[in-house]
């Protein structure tokens, strides 16, 4: 493991926020941390960048000058222009002169904000603000890029553009970690980790996660819930049979990441209750 968390437990205000979390973050990869509100995603990321101390386990991170971090909040100065925001970030990371200008220009082109360089950060749309924040975190070509929910509350077009930026950073060799509440976004990464109540439910490469789903998954159309282990998915019901035997009338389907996440949660509940 190059960077990441190794069996980390974090306690915040007496409450355990994450427990025994291992999150490997490799260079030239995008790791997606998925979970609902309060699952511990932000705590994982904050522990990774050193914003919270860990109670147990160890953290591997590069020096501060090689980290790019965008918190879940804005991550930019609303009363500075786009140009000034990028310049601040670049200067903070030790860039100056022609190098600063060159990098800032390239980043603004990359995030598609070249045409609004004189606009105040606060006057940008939500999607543009997030793109600017990601651009600011990328301006110094960090080794580790940590993004806390960059796509939450962002329109679909901007979300696609953000993911294009994130994938590009990964492809250029950066170790990227992205937290998100959207399960379908896990498929965009090279590795995913699903968190619930501070614990890791499942982790690994997306295809590996899907391939290792226990039991059998089926699909059936109907009004009422067919079994206790079933959930709505569009017009259909998904039915999960932990033992592998699907009820009659249920068609077998291959699970995707969303199904895998629900099944992992159900399996975890079963393990707790048994």
């Amino acid at each position, binding site marked *: 493991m190059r960077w990441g968390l190794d069996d980390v437990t974090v306690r915040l205000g007496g409450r355990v926020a994450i427990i025994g979390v291992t999150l490997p973050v490799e260079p030239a990869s995008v790791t997606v941390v998925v979970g609902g509100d309060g699952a511990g995603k932000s705590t994982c990321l904050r522990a990774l960048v*050193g914003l919270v*101390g860990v109670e147990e386990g160890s953290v591997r991170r590069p020096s501060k000058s090689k980290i790019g971090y965008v918190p879940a909040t804005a991550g930019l100065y609303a009363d500075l222009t786009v140009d000034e925001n990028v310049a601040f970030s670049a200067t903070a990371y030790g860039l100056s002169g022609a190098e600063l200008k060159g990098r800032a220009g390239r980043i603004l082109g990359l995030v598609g904000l070249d045409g609004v360089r004189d606009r105040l950060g606060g006057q940008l749309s939500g999607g543009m603000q997030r793109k600017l924040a990601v651009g600011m975190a990328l301006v110094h070509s960090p080794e580790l890029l940590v993004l806390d929910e960059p796509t939450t509350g962002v329109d679909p077009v901007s979300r696609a553009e953000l993911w294009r930026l994130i994938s590009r950073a990964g492809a250029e060799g950066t170790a990227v970690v992205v937290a998100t509440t959207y399960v379908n976004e896990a498929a965009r990464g090279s590795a995913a980790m699903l968190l619930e109540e501070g614990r890791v439910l499942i982790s690994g490469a997306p295809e590996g996660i899907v391939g290792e789903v226990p039991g059998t998954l089926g699909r059936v159309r109907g009004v009422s819930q067919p079994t206790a282990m079933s959930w709505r998915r569009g017009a259909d019901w998904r039915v999960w049979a932990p033992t592998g035997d699907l009820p009659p009338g249920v068609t077998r389907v291959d699970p995707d990441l969303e199904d895998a996440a629900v099944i992992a949660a159900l399996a975890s509940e079963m393990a707790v209750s048994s």
Partner: protein
Amino acid sequence: MWAMVTKEFRQLRRDRRTLAMMIVLPVLLLVVFGDAASFSVKEIPTIVVGPRAELVAPLLHAPFQVVAVDVDGTESTAKQRLLVGAAVVGVVTRDSGVLVLLDGTQVFSVQTAESALARNARTPGEAGFTAAAVRVQILYNPSLTTSWVMVPGLAGLILVFIGTLITSLGVVRERQSGTLEQLAVMPFRPWDVIIGKIVPYLMVAALDLAVIIVVGMAVFHVPFVGNVATFLLGAALFLLVTLGMGVLISTVSQNQGQAIQLAFMILLPQVLLSGLIFPVASMAAGVRWISYVLPLTYFIRISRGVMLKGTPISALWQPIGLLAVLAVGVLGLAILRFRRDLAPNLRGTAEQGAGLLEGANP
């Protein structure tokens, strides 16, 4: 409607600061206006010098409070005592008559003293002097111009305003927008952030101070007879205290509303109890103690002393020393608290089993 009332009370109960302000503020105002807000001075520190000092001193009744009697003293002795602020009234007795020196920077004390002297003049003969033999001389501010004493004080008030309110708002804005968290991850040392955050406000406040003094001198003809360096030293120390309070407020405020509330609670007593408007000497003993912990009280002593009287630094060691202590204490505490926000991974990392492989570069 009842639902609204219940909701409002519940919210109010959670908002402890507003509740505190609603309760503390009326009490403070009551105390101040009931007890402290008085222009009539009850005690005026008086020094009596000259060959007949021992004869004259017992004849001085309230409001004169004789703090020293010096038979060998001369007019210059008395002036020196007034210059360093040891007394407001200097009575110089001579064989030929009495010279009463008054410290014109203490406008209300002087007005009270003048009317007391006028009363005394109606009962002449005491101590063998006729009223005609009593000569009164007001020093430093002969025409008792209010603006002369207000400008040095207002300079302090404006420094409090910028230092405390504007600084706290600036830091809280950073916290509220979440950028403070980002700064903590950037390759800044906590000192870089703290100093980088404070210096612009320090510079603006210094510029403001210069403007106030220059405008005061040009428009209101306020004199500046003392040493500029002494004044600057006092102003710098005072500014550090106010900036420290600003940062301190920001570390205990989650949003700008809370910061304004707290800054207001710190500003108000300084306006009312520092001697800016009401003389400290006229306050009741209990209230006077509050004024003694307010930094503006000491800055006003320095600024009025240096600007109007030319008080030397040797006579101002007490307010300068106290401001220095306050500066170190308040700014130190503020920086410690602010640092905790900027280097949170240093907090509580001593737990067993916690390992941090920062900067590992295999």
